């Protein structure tokens, strides 16, 4: 136990103790701790094993850049892998486990990989697990999975809820450090709507490490909380910056609880549409590559300061701080103040004005020096580039290679990062969207300077959003300027110097990538997997680039870093899916008769967004029995079916008829009022788009029906042509699909049934013939009647204002009772339409022309029609194209399959077409089908084969007319 809790200091509540569990052991901590700080306070040094070499690893950072301390959080259905101990807010009852170790953390058999070191170099997987192919599934993949596993996902459904929320604001501030708080305050004082997002559970960022600024932080947070126009969101990480100033974030609403409260979501996916954005995301400390920089006890200097100042934890006893810049001096001081053991400060720079002050505090300062080796117990410190050196007992080694401004979001917004030599890092480039960076994000360090810059950015952002009022408020003092950083990336000494700890990428791997031709930074990244782990290279990406640059003989800025893309931090799929899972996955559309179907035992099936009754099984019925019973009732007597899902479009205006003439291949201007007509419309490329019946209700008033699936596309097609192609036509139309429920009453007894139900309309064949349209009343409800048929029987469709649908449906059922009326579902309807040979979805598949479907002669002789010209292209007009035909098996015991190929001889490799729809027929007591067959007309009555290699089936079939039932069409006119 080399780390421990200090008796005082930090932002933890020592008065309260919380219990938690790590790898089966119980520990205690305090509110305000992270899992990482609590583990350190308990002296836990080893928290995980590395990805490739299974090297033991300890806590390296205090934030989202953590590469090592990945743990499985919670148990059972709530188990979540790959969470960072440095990001987990401690709570009572927290259960966590280390991962990527087998069989246990302390004794890991896989660490043999480390001894096999050189074998597992960059590109190892690409080179090794290639041949033979048959080894992949059985040997390589399981091996890699075991070796590579980064935690286990829960295997049960996630019991928690997630949701999305969309916010708008004038100024979005990302980050609540000195710059962020000042920016939000300035924008808020100006009157703008401000949202400030903080990833952490406490606002303050770097202020949390500065006891001297605690009062200012408190004042600022209080002032912001008092402003009604400012919203502070903590635990909210902004992960992406998208086009048109849209930013995405995840709010971890209840990750700090064992279980969410009742009605509470676990995480909330948030979007922000901001007029202006201030990025105050701070900076991340970068690694130095030296042998053993991954050993437990290695901890970034800034992280060590965080554990000391924020959590009151001393992360080690004897410390070596290794730096090329001033910031780590504060870590050395804080360690010395904590007063446990020896503190050595190793600075690569040959001069430092701060050295004397350090020495005065008992810190051993070694200038112009470097750390050549660290093994967790001792560190070797030598003159830069020299040999030998002094060995120091050290259980804590704190590197600081300088600070990288967190330019990720700015970069995602389109601002190309710019190299800033004084920082040896990138700063945000020129803004492309309405954003500006402030404070450390922009390379302005120190609390006072960052706050001053943040206030400026907040004022400017508010003014740009239209809020110019400026109001001064107190800002912290600006400190003295720092000494220049000495760019320093790697200590050249033997041993593994890591640039990516999570993916075990070493400096040597980068050089290997270069030697093997992967010299572009994007190629080197993918070849070595550098920066591709869940910490996304926050610690070492630039270090890797510098090593690559040296190998290429170019400056770092010429090599650059890989492009920053969302997400800045890992995001759970559950959060992105939000509420839209399970029953809420997509909208459900219910007809007005939905309740009746449910009450009467219908088996409901989603078809697109709609819920439709498939059939209404009676007790004991199985398989096709209910379908046959329903279809037989229609063919022999009468049935009733909910066809409300048909698209219905009300078309009016003096030019309504002219408009429809251009939409459909056939003519509607000649249709008499009170009649309807079947129509076919094409796409402009000549392929059939949709079909349906259109009724003329008045000289200038039509009702168009579409297929269920095409209701929305047909309306958009009509709108496009009316608005943009023929704006001169005086025509108005709108969807009335939901206004009218529609019911089909079909079968030889349908007229008698309706005669008993309908008032005010004579249904006799003379007065109301096939394709007639009329109005009447059923049960007092005014309805429209259409004499049309999909089943091939005498049939009617009745349109009823949807609120009265059930009344009318029940009245028809009562009227049909003497004839044994039955409700029939989609399956019986489909059976009958295949028997009748009506083309539907499988035939209107976006490949067929009107001629292919046997409707070529419907095309009117003259006039402008959408699709007419291109339908005439030779390829589409070729009479040899697949044509719609019927098929029946020669052996009536054989079943047919949709999707089967039509061939001359079994085993023939040449397909003549395909089977589009099949059903068991009640008219023919065998399977029947519709097919698209080349030269189908000429093949009538010939025998061919329907082959389905998937089922290893080959069925001899006879080509017939597609009309398996009543080809003369007498029944519908009876």
């Amino acid at each position: 136990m080399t780390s421990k809790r200090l008796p005082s200091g930090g932002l933890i509540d020592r008065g309260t103790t919380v219990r938690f569990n790590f790898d089966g052991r119980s520990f205690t901590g305090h509110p305000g701790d992270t899992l990482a700080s609590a583990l350190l306070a308990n002296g836990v040094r080893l928290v995980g094993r590395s990805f490739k070499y299974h090297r033991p690893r300890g806590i390296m950072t205090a934030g989202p850049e953590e590469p090592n301390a990945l743990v499985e959080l919670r148990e059972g259905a709530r188990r979540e892998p790959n969470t960072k101990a440095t990001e987990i807010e401690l709570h009572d009852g927290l259960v966590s486990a280390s991962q990527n170790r087998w069989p246990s953390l302390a004794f890991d058999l896989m660490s043999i990989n480390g001894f096999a070191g050189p074998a597992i170099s960059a590109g190892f997987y690409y080179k090794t697990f290639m041949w033979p192919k048959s080894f992949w599934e059985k040997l390589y993949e399981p091996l890699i999975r075991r070796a590579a596993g980064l935690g286990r996902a829960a295997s049960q459904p996630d019991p928690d809820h997630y949701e999305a929320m969309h916010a708008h604001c004038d100024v979005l501030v990302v980050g609540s450090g000195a710059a962020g708080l000042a920016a939000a305050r300035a924008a808020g004082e100006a009157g703008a709507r401000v949202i400030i997002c903080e990833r952490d559970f406490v606002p303050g960022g770097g202020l949390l490490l500065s006891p001297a600024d605690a009062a200012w932080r408190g004042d600022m947070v209080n002032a912001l909380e008092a402003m009604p126009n400012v919203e502070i969101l903590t635990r909210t990480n902004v992960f992406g910056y998208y086009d048109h100033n849209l930013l995405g974030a995840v709010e971890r609403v209840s990750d700090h609880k064992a279980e969410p409260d009742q009605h509470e979501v676990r995480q909330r996916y948030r979007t922000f549409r901001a007029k202006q954005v201030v990025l105050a995301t701070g900076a991340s400390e970068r690694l130095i590559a030296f042998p053993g920089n991954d050993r437990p006890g290695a901890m970034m200097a800034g992280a060590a300061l965080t554990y000391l100042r924020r959590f009151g934890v001393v992360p080690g006893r004897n410390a070596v701080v290794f730096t090329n810049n001033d910031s780590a001096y504060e870590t050395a001081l804080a360690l010395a103040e904590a007063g446990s053991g020896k503190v050595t400060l190793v600075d690569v720079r040959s001069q430092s004005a701060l050295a004397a002050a350090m020495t005065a505090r008992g810190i051993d300062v070694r200038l112009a020096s470097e750390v050549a080796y660290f093994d967790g117990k001792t560190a070797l410190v030598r003159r830069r580039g020299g040999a030998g050196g002094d060995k120091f007992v050290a259980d804590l080694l704190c590197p600081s290679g300088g600070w990288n401004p967190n330019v990720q979001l700015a970069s995602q917004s389109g601002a190309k990062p710019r190299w800033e030599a004084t920082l040896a890092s990138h700063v945000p480039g020129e803004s492309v969207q309405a954003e500006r960076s402030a404070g450390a994000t922009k390379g302005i360090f120190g609390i006072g300077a960052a706050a001053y810059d943040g206030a400026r950015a907040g004022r400017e952002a508010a003014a740009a959003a239209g809020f110019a009022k400026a109001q001064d408020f107190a800002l912290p003092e600006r400190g003295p300027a720092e000494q220049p950083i000495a760019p320093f990336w790697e200590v050249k000494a033997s041993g593994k110097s890591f640039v990516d700890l999570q993916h075990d990428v070493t400096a040597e791997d980068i050089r290997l990538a270069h030697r093997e031709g992967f010299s572009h930074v994007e190629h080197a990244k993918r070849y070595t997997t550098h920066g591709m782990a869940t910490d996304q290279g926050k610690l070492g990406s630039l270090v890797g680039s510098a090593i690559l640059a040296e190998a290429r003989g170019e400056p770092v800025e010429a090599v650059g870093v890989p492009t920053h893309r969302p997400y800045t931090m890992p995001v759970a799929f559950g959060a992105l899916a939000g509420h839209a899972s399970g029953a809420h996955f997509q909208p459900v559309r219910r007809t007005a008769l939905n309740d009746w179907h449910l009450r009467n035992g219908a088996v409901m099936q989603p078809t697109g967004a709609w819920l439709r009754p498939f059939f209404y099984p009676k007790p004991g019925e199985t398989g096709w029995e209910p379908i046959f019973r329903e279809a037989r009732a229609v063919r022999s007597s009468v049935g009733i079916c909910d066809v409300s899902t048909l698209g219905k479009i009300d078309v009016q205006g003096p030019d309504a008829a002219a408009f429809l003439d251009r939409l459909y291949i056939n003519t509607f201007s000649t249709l008499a009022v009170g009649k309807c007509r079947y129509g076919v419309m094409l796409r402009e490329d000549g392929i059939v788009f949709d079909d349906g019946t259109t009724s003329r209700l008045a000289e200038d008033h039509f009702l168009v029906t579409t297929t269920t699936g095409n209701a929305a596309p047909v309306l958009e097609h009509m709108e496009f042509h009316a608005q943009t192609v023929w704006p001169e036509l005086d025509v108005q139309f709108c969807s009335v699909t939901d206004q009218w429920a529609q019911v089909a009453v079909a079968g030889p007894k349908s007229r008698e049934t309706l005669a008993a139900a309908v008032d005010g309309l004579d249904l006799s064949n003379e007065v109301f013939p096939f394709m007639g349209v009329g109005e009447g009343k059923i049960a007092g409800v005014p309805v429209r009647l259409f004499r049309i048929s999909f089943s091939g029987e005498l049939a009617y469709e009745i349109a009823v204002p949807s609120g009265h649908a059930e009344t009318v449906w029940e009245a028809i059922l009562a009227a049909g009772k003497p004839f044994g009326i039955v409700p029939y579902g989609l399956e019986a309807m489909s059976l009958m339409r295949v028997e009748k040979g009506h083309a539907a979805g499988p035939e209107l598949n976006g490949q067929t022309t009107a001629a292919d479907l046997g409707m070529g002669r419907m095309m009117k002789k003259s006039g402008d029609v959408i699709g007419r010209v291109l339908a005439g292209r030779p390829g589409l007009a070729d009479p040899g194209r697949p044509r719609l035909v019927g098929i029946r098996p020669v052996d009536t015991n054989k079943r047919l399959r949709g999707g089967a190929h039509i061939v001359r001889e079994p085993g023939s490799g040449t397909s003549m077409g395909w089977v589009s729809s099949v059903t068991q027929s009640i008219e023919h007591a065998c399977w029947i089908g519709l097919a698209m067959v080349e030269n189908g007309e000429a093949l009538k009555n010939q025998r061919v084969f329907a082959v389905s290699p998937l089922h290893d089936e080959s069925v001899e079939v006879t080509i017939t007319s597609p009309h398996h039932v009543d080809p003369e069409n007498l029944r519908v006119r009876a």
Partner: protein
Amino acid sequence: MHLIPCPYCGERPQDEFHYRGDATVKRPAPDAGEQAFYDYVYTRANPRGWHDEWWQHYAGCRQWIRVRRNTLTHAVAASAGPADALPEATP
């Protein structure tokens, strides 16, 4: 999620719109012949940069609007109603 400025409804998120593509092609006269219709349906310049496109505000005012969008940057310079013209050119 882009913002599309509808000339009737103002800026709206992209998921309220359906995209149709090139708004510079014009449906030929019915007797213009096969090649003219072929070009209308299939031939596209696919420019890098500013492009005039049809977008339908299907979840809003249902108008097919012309949108001048930069295919490289996704910036939108202008929009116009179905029967209205976009400005001459965008630099």
